[in-house]
């Protein structure tokens, strides 16, 4: 009779633990699905807002499919939308995987699921403080000698108390709540974008136009710097780079070349203004700092002779 009673208690505890394992596993699947959905919707929201589907026009592999729809009866969806959903799903899985806790879960999808018994007992004990430390102790000692009346008493009381455990109490309401809130908010924003067509200020195409070959295109010159406006002709001396230790003869024979002085008199000449030098190009500091002695006089003489000849 004593063994029968003990056997019944052992079975009660084992059945309860197995049931809790199953319930907790089911709840974890729900948490995973909700979290995946929340991340996917938020990612989709970001993708739609910034018109990330434009990116498929720029990829040679997907470009031929852009704007086309697969042959699905009663349903129309473009290929770029399908691609985007696919990428969003992959990204969401990646995010989930990056979380340590979820790496284990994804691992479990492919490997044999390790037992969650301890974890489920912890959850039950946390939810029902009257079972704190008792449930695990009774379960661990379920096969103990029935003559140990301390353990027998514990097992009896625990097997009686677990009858009051409601599986619905074990759900992590906060976690579910956060996931649902994220889903609702992301869904509302997506709906807003869908109905109003409101999107972000730029798309991947705009960015691509700015970086056609991986470099920044030179911004177009404004009208003030165009070649037709004579007032914008640069009159500064062209940059001269002086290499230290190398003597450069910069003297010009008087009368050689033409200068802007002729233009000032209004006479026709064949002076062709040079194109504006690239603004990013700067004169070497050596020009100012290490101008060799005597060069300054040479330059001054040059301009004097130029003035006298003119």
């Amino acid at each position, binding site marked *: 009779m004593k063994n029968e009673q003990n056997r019944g208690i052992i079975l009660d505890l084992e059945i309860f633990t197995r049931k809790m394992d199953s319930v907790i596993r089911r709840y974890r699947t729900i948490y995973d699905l909700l979290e995946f959905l929340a991340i996917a919707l938020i990612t989709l929201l970001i993708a739609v807002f910034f018109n990330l589907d434009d990116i498929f026009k720029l990829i040679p592999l997907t470009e031929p499919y852009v704007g086309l729809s697969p042959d699905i009866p009663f349903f129309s969806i473009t290929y770029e939308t399908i691609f985007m959903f696919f990428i969003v799903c992959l990204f969401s899985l990646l995010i989930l995987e990056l979380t340590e806790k979820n790496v284990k879960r994804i691992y479990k999808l492919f490997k044999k699921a390790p037992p969650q018994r301890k974890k489920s007992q912890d959850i039950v004990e946390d939810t029902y403080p009257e079972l704190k*430390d008792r449930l695990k102790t009774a379960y661990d000692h379920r096969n103990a000698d029935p003559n140990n*009346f301390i353990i*027998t008493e514990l097992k009896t009381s625990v097997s009686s108390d677990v009858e009051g455990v409601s599986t619905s109490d074990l759900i992590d309401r906060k976690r579910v709540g956060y996931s649902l809130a994220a889903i609702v908010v992301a869904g509302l924003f997506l709906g807003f974008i869908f109905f109003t067509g409101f999107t972000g200020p730029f798309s991947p195409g705009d960015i691509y136009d700015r970086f056609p070959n991986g470099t920044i295109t030179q911004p177009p010159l404004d009208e003030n710097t165009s070649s037709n406006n004579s007032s914008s002709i640069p009159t500064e001396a062209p940059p001269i780079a002086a290499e230290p230790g190398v003597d450069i003869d910069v003297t010009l024979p008087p009368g050689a070349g033409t200068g802007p002085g002729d233009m000032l008199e209004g006479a026709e000449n064949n002076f062709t203004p040079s194109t504006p030098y690239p603004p990013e190009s700067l004169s070497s500091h050596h020009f100012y700092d290490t101008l060799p002695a005597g060069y300054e006089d040479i330059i001054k003489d040059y301009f004097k002779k130029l003035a006298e000849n003119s």
Partner: protein
Amino acid sequence: MEPETNETSYRYSKNNLNDTDSKKEFAESAETAETAADSESYAPDANVSDSPAAEPAVYSAPESVADPALLKTYENAHKIFTTLFDEIGKVIVGQQEVVEQVMIALLCNGHALLESNPGLGKTLTISTISKVVDLSFNRIQCTPDLMPADITGTTIVEEHGGDKKFRFEHGPVFANIVLADEINRASPKTQSALLEAMQEKQVTVAGHTYPLDKPFFVLATQNPIEQEGTYPLPEAQLDRFLLKILVPYPDYKEELEIVNRYTAQSSPATSRGISKDTLVSLQKLTKDVPIAEDLKTRTIQLVIKTRDGGAIEYGASPRASIAIILAAKARALIHGRNYVAEEDVIAISYPVLRHRIILSFEAERSGVTPDDAIEDLLIDAGFLKPKPQENESSGLRAKLPFGAKK
């Protein structure tokens, strides 16, 4: 006694085993067991295949009856402890935790070292406990000139009708409870004599070994502020003590009560609370209190963490793991629980570990106490939650010098 934090703990609810409802439950459970056995054959499914649930589910021990005396003691345990603490409370004001820890040491058949400043009732507490528990009691006042023979006893020549023969004169160590007062004032030689008695529960004099009475406890006291003329106990001897109990100062109300009690005409007196047999039964029951595997694992990890370095130079030995588990069981029994709770391990970790760890120089210099280090270990092991105020400016990490590894 510490207030019971877990209100749902079981206070010896023996009726669970005897009442009609329980019997009905048992019968139903048995039916369920048979039904389930038929339908599932206890085949471990994929989900639980590698869990302990997959072990043979049914214990097939032959039916036998538990020790009735032990069962009776267990049923009366709550009453026994209540009586015991009430009796001690007649003499000792406050100090519930100290009294509880001394009782834990007795239940674990271990020795205890009480440390406090003078005048806090260490000696009174121990002598009161020995009076309440029906055990023989001897007191040894340790001094630097105390010799080993003064403790163990000596062989004397006795003359009977002209015949002379040697007779062993038992020393004060031959008692159930030995109070070694101010143990750190005894010379190392004398302390060593006590060491054999504490560990082996026997003494050897002139080549003869004499077993000590059972149960045997050494309850020692020491004063932490006196340094001159003292011989600090070596680590090996400290490890023999199950618990190192710190006796705190009483608060205002307690001190007022002490003054009222001890300035009246009649001094408080106690009567016998429990017998030696009851104590032995309680010691047996202590070992039967179950502890969850998870809790046991975490406790061992806690002790192993003491050897990881940081603030602790030398960690605790495996003896500390045994001591924590056993003392936690005793505490659970005293608190009327039929299982070890996490709070038992937390409460008992301090007195078990504080004399078994040696702090690093940096930690000591920074004012870290062994209890600080133990608290930090308990936090690391997940037993305690970090205190909200424990940030950069407080706690052990703040006390440790910059760069000290935790």
